[in-house]
């Protein structure tokens, strides 16, 4: 079996390479059914239905973004009403400064809702993905560079409670994985 990274350091997992999205999809289904939890599949693009195949739930990000949007909305309510109605009421063209003036504040409320939702979407996504990070054990494997090109990979991590090197190797072979490699850290 090939080894990537520094063999002295702790092994990250056993990785295998696949040729097509459909092979990877079916491999993920079987890994899920075999009861592994700490595994991931890598592909050049998101594969439709892969979350189900891996047994992953829907991303929580949507709920976070709702909270972000709500924060933006409330910020805008405060930003417009506190100065314009409470601390520094500015009467322009005889328009009211109380709650009746709310339609004039809708654009600001809308824009800040969108702005903070978008910030939450992008930065929430990065945080949930553990990004940015400078290095990862998978990058020690030279073949893994093609994950962003046209190859598909899967890895079963050593921290999975069911991990046993020989079993996993045979299992990955039975799924049709090629170039099975033990990936180490640095």
């Amino acid at each position, binding site marked *: 079996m090939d080894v990537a990274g520094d063999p002295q350091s702790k092994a990250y997992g056993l990785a295998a390479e696949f040729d097509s*999205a*459909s092979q*990877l*999809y*079916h491999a*993920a289904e079987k890994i899920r059914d075999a009861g592994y939890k700490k595994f*991931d*599949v*890598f*592909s*050049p*693009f*998101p*594969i*439709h*239905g*892969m*979350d189900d*195949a*891996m047994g*992953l739930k*829907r*991303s929580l*990000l*949507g709920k976070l*973004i709702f909270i972000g949007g709500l924060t933006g909305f409330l910020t805008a309510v405060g*930003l*417009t009403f506190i100065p*314009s109605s409470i601390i520094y009421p*500015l009467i*322009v063209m005889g*328009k009211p400064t109380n709650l009746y*003036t709310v339609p004039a504040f809708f*654009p*600001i409320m*809308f*824009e*800040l809702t*969108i*702005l903070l*939702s*978008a*910030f939450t*979407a*992008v930065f*929430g*996504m*990065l945080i*949930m*993905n553990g*990004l*940015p*990070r*400078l290095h990862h054990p998978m*990058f020690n494997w030279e073949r893994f*560079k093609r*994950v*962003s*090109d*046209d190859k598909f990979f899967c890895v079963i991590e050593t921290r999975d409670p069911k991990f046993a090197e020989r079993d996993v190797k045979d299992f990955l072979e039975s799924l049709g994985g090629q170039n099975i490699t033990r990936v180490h850290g640095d």
Partner: protein
Amino acid sequence: MADATVHTTENLTPDQQAVTRPPLVLNQRKMGWIANYVSSIVEDKTPIWWWACFLPCLALTGVLGFCIVYLVSTGVGVWGNNHPVGWAWDITNFVFWIGIGHAGTLISAILFLTRQKWRTSINRAAEAMTLFAVICAAIYPGLHVGRVWMAWFLAPVPNANAIWQNFRSPLLWDVFAVSTYFTVSVLFWYTGLIPDLATLRDRATTKIKKFFYGTLALGWRGGNRQWRHYEMAYLLLAGLSTPLVLSVHSVVSFDFATSVIPGWHTTIFPPYFVAGAIFGGFAMVLTIMIPACAIYKPLHDLVTISHVDKMCKVIVFTGSIVGYAYIMELFMAWYSANPYERAAFWYRAFGPYWWAYWSMMFCNVIAPQIFWFKYFRTHLVWVWIICQFPNAGMWYERFVIIATTLSRDFIPSAWGQFHPTWVDIWMFIGTFGLFFTLFLLFIRFLPMICMFEVKAVLPEADPHHGEKH
């Protein structure tokens, strides 16, 4: 149906052929080819044509920079703006550039939500165009404030002068709308770039490239545990950008519509401005994509004639909405029986600015109607030529709305004409220089096609590809 998109239709029955979707990527290009070819545009030696285009554009950007320095150091009076035309070319150019940006967001967000998979090969370049157009747009109101060093008064920050913003002013709405639009567009664009930057990182050969693309790719691995959050973020960004893009030009139109000036005070403005923005923006997308694909010929397998055809249909559709709005404005001017409103429109069509009005009518309403004919939608030289009419026409539209309306005040003694100065003219040309400079830099350093999304629309990207049902 896994194989709804197939490459060969010969061995299918006529019924099957009728329901088979044409392939989005021609010549049976594989994933490896897409990554290779699109990356090679960035990786190959800088071509001569690039320098030949870049240097003149850079020179024009320099002219713009000079004009800005001259304007800031001398005063905003170096523009031709004066009573009664206090908003002139600067606001015309602002609305013109902001409008151009809208097509990019429409392609990236609205077509994403409506699952128009053909968008994948044009969204990257169109979004880049959005950003560059908004940068060009932001210059004008930034300078129009007059004392540029006080532009921070636009931001709601407590200050010692006890000045606080009037949140009921559409001009302040505009500050929020445009800055939010720019920020969200940058985030959306960058999010889309991350997986492609990872491709460039993995292919990088030199230390500098590895550092540059490696840093920008943020350590992206392409694991499905990342993709699932990524896809959710992308979907929601598209969902957020869709109302945002519609709101931005609506808010821009409020600058006019909430005033009580004849010719501006109309409720039709928001939808009419948004349709016009998409109309002009698509014309600009085609104006820059057609030459880019002519230079990189194999891109025609990704940005196909069918793409051009569809964009031309959007142009003729939105152009017709704009034409309807023009006619409805005229009708309402007559039907309202308001003498000032009638006079404003009479003056637009038959006053001293008649040439601008009829140029606008011809360029925006008449010229694009030629896209009803398939021949003109599918021959690139024709498409490019016809797209120049909306490009020019949309500038005329904003000029007509702003200058003709302001030049006739309520009292004839306050009437006056606008005359651009050389600073007006060179700043306008200079923003084109800036726009194309940024676009050329984009082509050179970032993948102009969204590689991972194009790979995902290939038939073999389907996890059930090749399986029998």
